[in-house]
């Protein structure tokens, strides 16, 4: 059964005000198209769960979509700061933003516990760090067998996980190559899952290469085809990271009026992500083309 819908329908039907939403993807596969749709549909009081909020977190903070952030590293990688987020955290400008902070390993363990149905996840990090003081949900626990002091983090079960992938079947089998981040754990931990893909492919493509399937259709609620939907983030083999955008975002992010103007021009006044992609222009997309680097096919055999 096909679950293919537009981004507008997927977000409209599956994301409600007040939801916690994981938009994962570690530098790779960050679904800006979904973030823009949350902004366009003026969702409010969203808790954003993301290891690295990145530019999309800054935009969601500036647009007033999020009221809470669960994260582990908040910067504009290689380019500077996320100033809209910082304004809200440092000066409650224009409104406060609640934060819940971990390390990367802590966040990954939270999703893992959430996905595996565990009440907590133990890890050997944090000893000597002030993070457990800043965040009382990172708690000391004792190894029940040997008595060693460990820390535990609670499960993270987002209402919705939004995961961008290279290709998916219409039913929702999602295939990824390149950096995997913690999307599998985030999707299995979530109550609802939206898969966004560069291309919808026939189910036979998936079944011919099942090792590449990160997220299986039975846990997926909607499939959205949004080529280019990660820009300015990247999709391995499809387009490179648009570093110019990240650098350009630094001065925009510093100026609330410039952020508002950017959101008007690139989100509110566009119907959907296809218009964003067209507006960016073929020339810009051409600079992001990654060339070719194919892997050898593997033989799964034929067993009849």
């Amino acid at each position, binding site marked *: 059964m096909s679950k293919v819908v537009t981004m507008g329908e997927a977000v409209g039907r599956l994301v409600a005000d007040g939801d916690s939403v994981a938009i994962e993807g*570690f*530098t790779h596969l960050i679904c800006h198209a979904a973030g823009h749709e949350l902004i366009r549909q003026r969702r409010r009081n969203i808790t954003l769960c993301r290891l690295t909020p990145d530019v999309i977190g800054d935009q969601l903070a500036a647009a007033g979509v999020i009221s809470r952030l669960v994260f*582990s590293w908040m910067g504009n990688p290689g380019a500077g700061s996320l100033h809209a987020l910082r304004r809200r955290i440092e000066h409650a400008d224009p409104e406060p933003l609640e934060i819940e902070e971990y390390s990367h390993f802590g966040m990954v363990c939270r999703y893992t516990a959430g996905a595996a149905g565990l009440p907590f996840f133990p890890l050997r990090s944090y000893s000597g760090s002030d993070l457990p003081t800043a965040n009382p949900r990172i708690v000391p626990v004792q190894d029940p067998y040997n008595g060693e002091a460990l820390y535990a983090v609670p499960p993270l079960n987002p209402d919705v996980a939004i995961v961008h992938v290279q290709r998916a079947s219409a039913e929702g089998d999602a295939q990824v190559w390149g950096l995997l*981040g913690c999307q599998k754990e985030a999707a299995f931990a979530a109550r609802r899952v939206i898969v966004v893909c560069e291309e919808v492919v026939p189910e036979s493509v998936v079944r011919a290469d099942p090792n590449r399937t990160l997220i299986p259709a039975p846990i997926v609620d909607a499939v959205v085809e949004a080529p280019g939907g990660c820009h300015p983030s990247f999709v391995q083999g499809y387009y*490179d990271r648009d570093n110019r955008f990240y650098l350009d975002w630094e001065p925009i992010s510093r100026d609330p009026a410039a952020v508002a103007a950017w959101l008007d021009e690139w989100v509110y006044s566009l119907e959907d992500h296809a218009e964003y992609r067209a507006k960016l222009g073929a020339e810009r997309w051409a600079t992001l083309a990654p060339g070719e680097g194919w892997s050898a096919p593997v033989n799964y055999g034929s067993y009849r």
Partner: protein
Amino acid sequence: MTWTSNELMVAAAARRLAGERVCFVGIGLPNLACSLAQRTVEPNLELVYESGAVGARPERLPISIGDPCLVAGCRSVASQFDLFALYLQGGRVDVGFLGAAQIDRRGAINTTVIGPYGQPKVRLPGSGGACDIAVLASKVFVIMPQSTRSFVPRVEFVTSPGHFPGRRAPGGGPDTVVTQLGVYRFVEGEMTLTSLHPGATLDQVRAACGWDLAVAPDLGETPPPTEGELVALRALDPERVYLG
């Protein structure tokens, strides 16, 4: 060949990687130092990145920790759970190589906040994987520019722990710090100047340090960068993104 203090800093850091096998790499200066080490003292150095790239051989300078050039041609791509749990916590990482904005005499690093946590004056990015690396890597190297603002007696917030009484972490903690002025090791948990870079004076180092600095009795002088190191380094960062 003339050289800059940044080039010397990266070259000195790269030399420390001689004999190491697996290095968990932060982006920026640490990445540059590790890439240089692969081309000079330690061709077999395995680079692992918190994004999941294992055994990376980047053909261009990675712009971020998750640059696609780290994936193309790498040995394996691990999920982040596997990377942190099996590689790092599993004890498979010899050196964690970090950058830092603020460090103290015990090697604790603050990348979280200036001012009170609940009412920050400046909100910094946070831990990322740094806290995990500082606790779990067998040893930790740090490369960073040094000034009284970055070398403080005690960090306001310990993101990544250094040495402290009763430290019971799986990893050994901070081992080496390299700045534009010198190389530091930890002696009984105290950051100690062990090598002065050519052109730098002891007075200069002390003036760029926020506490009464310990100096090793057998203080050495860092050899200047060789022509081979400089050629390799400039080829790695032709636009001088990190070299300045």
